[in-house]
């Protein structure tokens, strides 16, 4: 694959293999279901599919950037960072996957935002979606925070698994977390939801997981990308059509890759918080970036061109569905 025999005008060819990266996580359910149900295999007919499981964003982005994988399910922030840093050379967002499912969960005794003064909260990673959301929300609530950790509320960017332990141990007062961690804190550690991120966004929609591809791969193998998207759309549709079976199939996939399924109540609660949608919600991206700037963790940057939604719209059109919008940030 990735052969480039005629530099001037590469003739698009079908790739021999497609290397897909994802996380063993309920927010990556479209990937898990697509693999479990053989939806990708079916749509990628003729192209071999290999998968790679990552635990963290940086390694996935580094691998995608270097061409070690061709496409990946990932959070919007790593994708934006990579796009900005490479001046648009590294990746393209080709579809949405999951939205919603992030909450600020706190100790039960905290019932109002005002009580957060001087408390210690966790987020998954500095400058990540939830981190930015928390910081900008705190600014709206009149608190001051700094990326270094100072301010009225102390923010500890910490691994989610550690956050659970720390919270159980009473060493954290709360955390802004994606699924399934928000659910785990609520169900396993007795946390209470103080803020649901969905309430902060238009229509309660914000992107949690998106599908991205290596820019070069997209240029060389558009057919393969289209095939991938067909599988992706099928997978998202399957999730929306089979809500009852979803938990079981996802857990089977998690057992295979993560070694263990999620507890039934955790996955059930997670799935009610998450929405699966091929729309990347491009309209929220400028706001995302604004929040980051406001929170002092990102700099102003130009992300127009990050989306390449042509292929997905073609697929949606074939299926007779409505096109998704790039909100002026790329081709549709």
């Amino acid at each position, binding site marked *: 694959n990735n052969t480039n025999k005629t530099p001037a005008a590469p003739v698009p060819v079908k790739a021999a293999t497609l290397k897909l990266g994802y996380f063993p996580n309920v927010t990556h359910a479209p990937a898990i279901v697509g693999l479990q149900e053989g939806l990708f295999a079916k749509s990628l007919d003729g192209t071999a599919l290999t998968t790679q499981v990552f*635990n963290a964003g940086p*390694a996935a982005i580094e691998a995608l950037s270097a061409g*070690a994988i061709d496409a990946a399910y990932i959070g919007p922030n790593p994708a934006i960072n990579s796009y900005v840093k490479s001046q648009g050379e590294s990746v393209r967002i080709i579809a949405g996957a999951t939205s919603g499912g992030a909450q600020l969960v706190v100790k039960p005794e905290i019932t109002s935002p005002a009580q957060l003064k001087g408390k210690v909260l966790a987020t998954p990673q500095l400058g990540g979606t939830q981190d930015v959301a928390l910081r900008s929300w705190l600014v709206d609530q009149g608190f001051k925070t700094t990326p270094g950790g100072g301010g009225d509320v102390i923010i500890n960017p910490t691994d989610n698994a550690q956050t*659970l332990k720390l919270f*159980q141990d009473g060493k954290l007062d709360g955390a802004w977390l994606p699924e399934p961690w928000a659910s785990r804190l609520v169900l396993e550690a007795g946390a209470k939801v103080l803020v649901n991120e969905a309430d902060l966004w238009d229509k309660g929609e914000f992107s949690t997981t998106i599908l991205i591809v290596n820019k070069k791969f997209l240029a060389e193998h558009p057919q393969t990308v289209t095939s991938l998207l067909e599988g992706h759309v099928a997978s998202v549709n399957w999730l929306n059509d089979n809500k009852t079976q979803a938990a079981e199939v996802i857990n089977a996939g998690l057992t295979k890759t993560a070694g263990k399924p999620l507890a039934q109540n955790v996955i059930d609660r997670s799935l009610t918080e998450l929405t699966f949608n091929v729309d990347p919600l491009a309209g929220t991206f400028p706001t995302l970036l604004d929040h980051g700037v406001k929170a002092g963790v990102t700099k102003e940057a130009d992300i127009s061109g990050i989306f390449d939604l042509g292929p997905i719209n073609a697929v949606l059109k074939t299926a007779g569905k409505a096109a998704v919008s790039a909100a002026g940030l790329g081709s549709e």
Partner: protein
Amino acid sequence: MPEKITAPVLKSGTPEELRSVEAGLDSLQSDLDVRKGFDWSRVFLPVGALAVLLLAWQFYVSLGLRRRDQVPGPLDVLGSLGSLWADGTVQEALGTSLQRGILGFTISVLVATPIGLLLAQVQVLRRAFGPLISGLQVLPSVAWVPAAIIWFGLTDGTVYFVVLMGAIPSIINGLISGVDQIPPEFRRMGQVLGASRWEMAVRVVLPAALPGYVAGLKQGWAFSWRSLMAAEIIAVGGTLGFGLGSMLEQGRQLADMGIVMSAILTILFVGIAVELFIFAPVEKRLLRGRGLLAGSTR
């Protein structure tokens, strides 16, 4: 009638008083040691120590200071290990990691030894690159990951690269330290015997530095194994196999202390086994051959 007494009867001169028992016991011990074949206390003592630690752990857990899912007891871990064993995860992880660890370490040794000898023997090279190598030694494994991914993609090449970058500087430094401690008369004797630079390095310097070199290898093995664990966290499954590091990380990601502890115990077990069955015998032979075993506790 000469009475045969194997252990010496120590009587004092004028006041019948026993001579320092300590010294007597010490020399007795070191003398007896040398004679035996495989000394089973080498296995039973560490196993015993481990058992005591396990008991202490169980006791701590049974105090109930912590929630069981946060600090599982030995039995819980055993259960978790058992189920991981039953579905083959442990075997797979252990096999993958062991294979990588051994191969990576072997390559490291083969690369580091000539470099180390060269640096130890040629002052200009040592002065130029010695500090750099010490600098590389303190770079965390994760620093190599982005570069490794760029160069090798998600292949075993990446894993080995990270392992090599972890182990090689350490082995080089160990060898150099060993060479530095060679008494100068050995080199002088080599020179008198007309050894060429190569012969000096291979016939005099390397064997003379061997005890220090093996000490460096031990540290290098630890570095390579730890780097391997770090490399196995990059990505799980797929083209990169599933190793003990992946298992540990998986446990952490799930906040499942049973898996975490199972991985830790397996890694610990590998470390102990390598020490007991590889390094300890090699060191013992080396020391004995040079008459350094007397008085040593090896």
